[in-house]
Each structure stands twice: as C-alpha cells, then as structure tokens.
C-alpha cells in the first residue's frame, strides 16, 4: 500500500495534537529523588522501617517493570513492616492506577497524603497522582 503525502501530513498533525494532550493517565513515572537504601544509622534507629525500605524499593522496581500484582505484594509487605512510610501508599496507589482501579488508588493516595504531608516534594507528586486518579474516574 502506498502512503499518500496527505496521509503523512495528517499523521504528523495528529502526533502534534497528541503531544499537546495531557500525559496518558496510566503512564508510570519513576521517582527521581527517592532514596530507598537505608543508612546504617537509620537501620539502627528503626530496623523495621529500614527493612521496609528494601521492600519499598522492590515494589518500585516491579512497578517500573509493569508488574503491578507483584509490586502490590511487596508494597503490602512494606506497609506491614512500616505503616508510617507514606511512599508505600503512594506506590500502592500507583499500582492500582496501573491496574485501572480508581477507588483503591484513591484510598491509597489519601493515605499517602496523610503520611507525606510534611514533604513538599512528595506532596506535589501526591497531588499529581490525585489528578490522574480523577482522570481515570471520568
């Protein structure tokens, strides 16, 4: 099949239009500033939290590999060890977004908000996540 010049123009236009659209809501955006390797001092002070960070890291990697079920399992284990780390809830929300479940994503986003309230950088991401959940709900 021959491609006509008009078709090419139409495709380019479509690409330009799409580039202006919001990002696909299910796109996984890996964190850049996060640190999931605990320092020795942190591990000494709260070993449970330090061990949980390992699982948080695993969960994040599994999300990057787009394996939400396995990620959820690792992150739930992390929550079991350290229920105060809001990152786990953020990533759990992300996993549920990946699975297309807005209600669960919303609950975990809310928990992330509660636990990450004092971290401005994370709160921006939590807010962006809430927007993506709202998009999914539409």
């Amino acid at each position, binding site marked *: 099949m021959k491609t006509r010049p008009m078709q090419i123009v139409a495709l380019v236009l479509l690409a330009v239009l799409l580039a202006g659209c919001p990002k696909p809501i299910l796109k996984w955006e890996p964190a850049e500033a996060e640190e999931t390797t*605990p320092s020795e001092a942190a*591990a*000494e002070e*709260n*070993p*449970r939290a*330090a*061990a949980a960070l*390992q*699982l948080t890291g695993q969960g994040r990697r599994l999300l990057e590999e787009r394996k939400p*079920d*396995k990620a*959820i*399992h*690792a992150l*739930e*284990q992390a*929550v*079991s*060890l*350290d*229920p*105060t780390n809001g990152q786990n809830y953020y990533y*759990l929300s992300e996993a549920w977004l990946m699975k297309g479940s807005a209600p*669960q994503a919303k*609950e*975990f986003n*809310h*928990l992330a908000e*509660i*636990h990450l*309230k004092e971290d401005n950088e994370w709160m921006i991401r939590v807010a962006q996540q809430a927007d993506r959940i709202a998009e999914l709900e539409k």
Partner: protein
Amino acid sequence: MLKKLLKYALLIFVLAGLGLTIYGWYLSNQVEKRFSARRWQIPSTVYSDTTLLYPGQRFNPTIFTRKLINLGYRRVNHLPAKKGELQITPVEINIFLNDLKTPWRTRAGFPVRVMSADNKIETISRIDNGDKIPILELEPEEIMQFFGPERERRHLISIEQVPEHLVRAVLAAEDHRFYQHAGVDFRGILRALITNLRHGAIRQGGSTLTQQLAKNYFLTPARTLTRKFKEVLLAVIIELKYDKNEILEIYLNEIYLGQKGSVAINGFGEASYFYFGKPLKELTLSEAAIMAGLIKAPNHYSPYRDKARCRSRRDVVLQSMQRNQWLSEAELQVELKQPIKAVGFTVSDTKAPYFIDYLTEQLKSLYRPEDLSSLGLSVYTTLDTQVQMAAEGALAKGLERLESSNPDLQRQAPEQKLQGAIVVMQPKTGHILAMVGGRNYSISQFNRITQARRQPGSAFKPFVYLSALAKFTPTTLLSNDPKSYTVDGKLWEPKNFEPVTEYTVSVKNALKKSYNLATVDLAMKIGLDQIVDMTSKFHFSTPLKPYPSLALGAFEVIPLELARAYCVFAAEGVQPFPLSLKGVVDEHDNILEQTHLNIERLIPPAEAFIMTAMLQSVVNEGTARSLKWRGVSWPVAGKTGTTNDFRDAWFVGYTSDILALVWVGFDNGDTIAATGAAAALPIWADLMNAIPQYRSETEFKAPQGVEKILVCSVTGLIAVDNCPEPAEVYFLAGHTPAEPCALHAKGGIAAKIIESLKDVIDEDDR
C-alpha cells in the same frame, strides 16, 4: 435326555459367562473411574504467610526455632551442607535455606548465617560468599491439606520417592510374591489354608496387596464369600489395567496406618512423619519394618500403644525379609537390636484450626469442597505461625492461671471449662496474623472470635467518645454523679464499677478510668442516635439500638468485628477488611485469586489520633496501667472491658503495627469474677512479650489537624504557672481551650487561697 441336559448346562454356562463378562466390564469401569479420580486427586494445601528476617529484628528464640522445625529444617551438628539443614549455636543460626516459591517471589535455597545477640538479629549473610542480606524471606509453612470432609492427613508420595528397603519390608510383611502373581496368589491362598487348618484358627490371610487395595477401595469389611469373590475379580481387573508399580504406589498412598486423635493417618508418606518425624527417604531399615508391620493392625502394633508388641511385629517383618533374601543374616542381627523409638506427637496437631475453619468459610464462596480436595491448589494465607504459637501459649497459660487463682472457675466437664479467644491483626492491612477461637479445638469447634456474640462492656466506650469529638474536647467536663434514666418505661440507674468521689471528670479521664456514669452522661448529651449512626459506619453486623445502655456496651458484638473496629483508631481512620486469604494458585502456578489490602476511610486521621491518645492514657494511667509492670513498656493504646456480673473480660490493645483482642468468659455466661484488666490484659501482655518482632517501640505519630496543649488538670483550660500537675493533651485543631486557667491565674480564687495559706505558713515560721 443327556443331550438336553448338556444343552441346558451349556446355556447356563454361556449365560453365566455373559453375566460375568458384563459384571467384569461394570467393575472394570468402576475401577477406572475410582482409580483415575483418586490417582489424580491432589489435595489443596494451605500455607502460612512468609516470614521476614532483617538486622535489628528482635525474635523469640523458642518460637523461632519451632518455626524452623515446622518448616522442615533438621538440626545438625555441623555447618549446613544441604538444603533443609539447620545448625543453632548460642550466637548464630546457620540455615541452608529451602527454595522459596510463592506466586509473588521465587528463589533457590542457599546457605545463610543469622548472627544474633540478646535475642536480636545483628547480621544476616550468605555463608558461601559472605554477602550481607538486608532482608530475608523464609518460605511459607504448610498448615494443612484439604483431604475430604474428615480432614484425613495424607502426604502423597510417588513410587520413585519410596526407598527400596521400605518396598521390600512391605512386600515381606504382606505379599512377598507381589511381582510374580496376577492379582491373586493361589500359592499364597493354599499356604494360608494349610497354616490355618494346622492351627485350627485363622492365622494367615492369603490376600495380595492388590486384593487389599480392592477391598479398601470398593468393598465393605464384611467377611462373606460374595465379598471375597468380588475382591478376587476386582484384583484381577486392577492387575489387567495397571502395572505393578502403579498399583504399589496407590497402595502405599492409600493404606490406613493409624490414628492421630480424630484424624486418620493414611499412606506411608504421612505415617512416616507421624511415627518418626521425617520424610520417607530418611527412614532406617528398622523403622521401615515397623511401618510395614503396622499394616496388619495399625493401632494394635503402634509404637505409641505398645512398644513390646510393636518390636515383635517388626522382628517378624525383618525375619521375613531375611527369608526372602532381602536382608543378610548379619544385617538382620543388627536390625533386631535396634530400639523402638517413635518421635512423639500431640493429639491436636492441626495448626491454627479455628483460623483454618474461618479460611475455609471464605474459600467456600470461591471453591466447592470437592474441588479443594482434588484440584491441588496452593492457598496462601496471612497467618503468622509464630504469632499463632504465641497466642495459643498465652491463652492456655492465662486461663490456667485464672483457674488456679480462683478454684470457683474450675469445671470438671471439658466442654464447660473457662474459655478464651484471641485475634491478632495488622491494623493497617487487615491481615489476620493469628486466631484462637477457643481453648481446645478437639473439644469445641465453636469459634469465639467469629461466631460468638458477646457484650463488649466498656470495650465499646471508645465509640461513644468518638461520636462526641465534634462537640466535646478531651478536657470537657462531664458529670460523674449518679442519675436515673427511664428506658421503655423502666427505671435504669447505671453505676460506676466502684464508688468514686470525682463527681466531675474530664472526657479524657472518664475514658481513662472507664467511668460508667460520666460515659452515660456524655452519651445522653450527644444523643444516642448520633452514637448509633457513628457506630454503624464500623461494620458491626449485630444490631445496636439507641438505648442508654448502648454507651456501656450492653449490645452484643462479634469479637472479630470489634477488633476490626479498633483498627480504625490505629490506622489513621481507615478501616481494613479482615483478610485471611492472600492468594490461590493452581497446580500449574497460575494465580487464580489474589486478595489485596481493602480499606475504607471512616473518620478523619486527626479524630483517630485523638482517640489513640486517649486510649494511650488508659494504658499509661488508667484501667490498663498494669501493662507496665507486665513488661509492656513501649507505646500502646487500648481499652479494658468487663460486663455485668463479670460475664465477659476483654482487652483490646494496639500499636501502629499490631492489634490484638483478648476475650475471656464462660460459654454459658457464668461469672468469671474478674475484670478485663485482671483476666484478659495479662494474656495480652504475655502474647506481646512473646512476639518481640512486632514491637516497633515508636510513638504514635500525630497527623496534621491536631494540637498539643499544656492544660490545667483541674479546669482543662490552658495551664498557667499555679496550675497543679499541668498535663499535655492533644486536641483537634480549632477545638483547643481558648482561655487560660482562671482558677489558678494570679487573682483567681485558687491562687488567692494558695497566697493566704502561704501567708499563714510564713507567719507560723516567724
């Protein structure tokens, strides 16, 4: 005439032959159906959760060692060299890990060293290359297998797993010509006949293994000629359809080999663990001969029943092996000298039976019982067997302690004895870590955590106080004066547990000291409908009505639902669905079901925290303060509960990581003559002390929306210099006291009195 007779005889012969053929064909189909069904019936296996180990983690050495043994690790006196070996020294635990295989993670086993000091893990490292391991996951523990409604125990084996000496011992004991005959051993029958005639009694049976199998599968134990005929016919059919090794494999998996309480032990795989605590491949020759000897009459020759009888039967088997040249004379002499030693067992060995019942109920909505006993599913659960062991131990010890301290609580009939129940959950995830539904499952299968409906008493009060948070602060003053209420035309006069002189008391102190009068006063001020509305959000399935006695926990609740409701306080206002099931995987490792943390937001985090802060004061200074001298020195929030006439004793306590509910009482509602603090709380303390791995020791973290203010302990207003014993109290933001304490402020009445007293004292001094 003769011709006619011959004709009839031939006709009868043909008809009989035809009948036999049709019957044989029918039996053949039956065999096919039954064998193929049975052979491919693979039980579903229930597993506990995996166990996480990490540096800095505290552990209970006794329970942890039992856990490793339950996982199948065998203690050795050298550095573990193969999978499943375990070496324990005072400072290190060396384990050659088994493979880990769950739907979510797989890894091959490797040797690992866990260094510890003072029951705390210092480091975890690989023995082979020294690499440090930050977090280690131990495989899940097998809890049970679904094998039919009777829960018969069976550990399936394939013929390749059976050691040769066991096969020979079985053949020597039961059918040494197994590989020569075609299902029926006519030589054997003749020999048995001669022996029996010689002794004038039945001394020997002529049944082959195949006949025994036919008998077990298809026939009743009745000793009739018809049954014997059927048995022979079936044996021949089985031999025609299956090869010898297949028949032997089915036989070894099927044969009844003893009784463990109410549970039948079927097959050599299971019996090997029951009698000797090890897999089949590790049985010694003497042990194999003991097991083969059991086939004749398992309970009669059981090493648990009569060691002398067991020995003499074993010796018969060994001698038969020697006669069949499967054993030399020298070997025989060595084996005959071996002692009879069984591993020992407890009658009720089903792990976490109440939890399993609860899980089975959940599974019923997903699978039919016959599927569970045949599809070979792997069922992964939330159970932590270390917590389960600790809970079972704490309950048993606590109930015995109560009975010995008060002989009135002792009952002769086992089913009337003092009861107790425990459920342990993770408040944030809803995972049920342990469930003990009663004192003794073999006596009563009634699950007091999931099936009982009991009045919670004061353990219900937190929901009354929560309902008041919109209008009342922790320092709002309540009346603790006796009052009468009219309910349905009847006079109701609540009383405090004991007479007190505090006629006015703050909200916080009323909960801390569990005052009934102040609580009812609060309930009436906020409105009973308001309490019912609030409480209905917490998913209690039992009816709660707007009667004043609601405030004192007079309506029955299901203990699991009460525990779930308390999770909301520990989990920033979010309620989890209680989970026992994590996932189901089929025999080809496909995930069929996966349950995830399922949560629902019920109250704002700030309100949940205010409740936790008040419930922490119950533990620090109130009715649960005895936890401190019971070794619980880390931050805990909780509430005691006692019902009318001391029928129920409760304690629900939690940290951010774990929540446990303990109930003690009699099934028939007899008094236990003890409060929640005296009966249930010590059990809770014992449980928590036994699972140090769940102790995070971190303070409950205040969320946004709460403020900590130093207040006057008398007026509840902002403390000033003269306020006696000012205390820090958490308030919801916007609900803090607006005024400084006027009573103790300069120029206040109290301050004036203090000043006057000072003047008097100063004058006296002069």
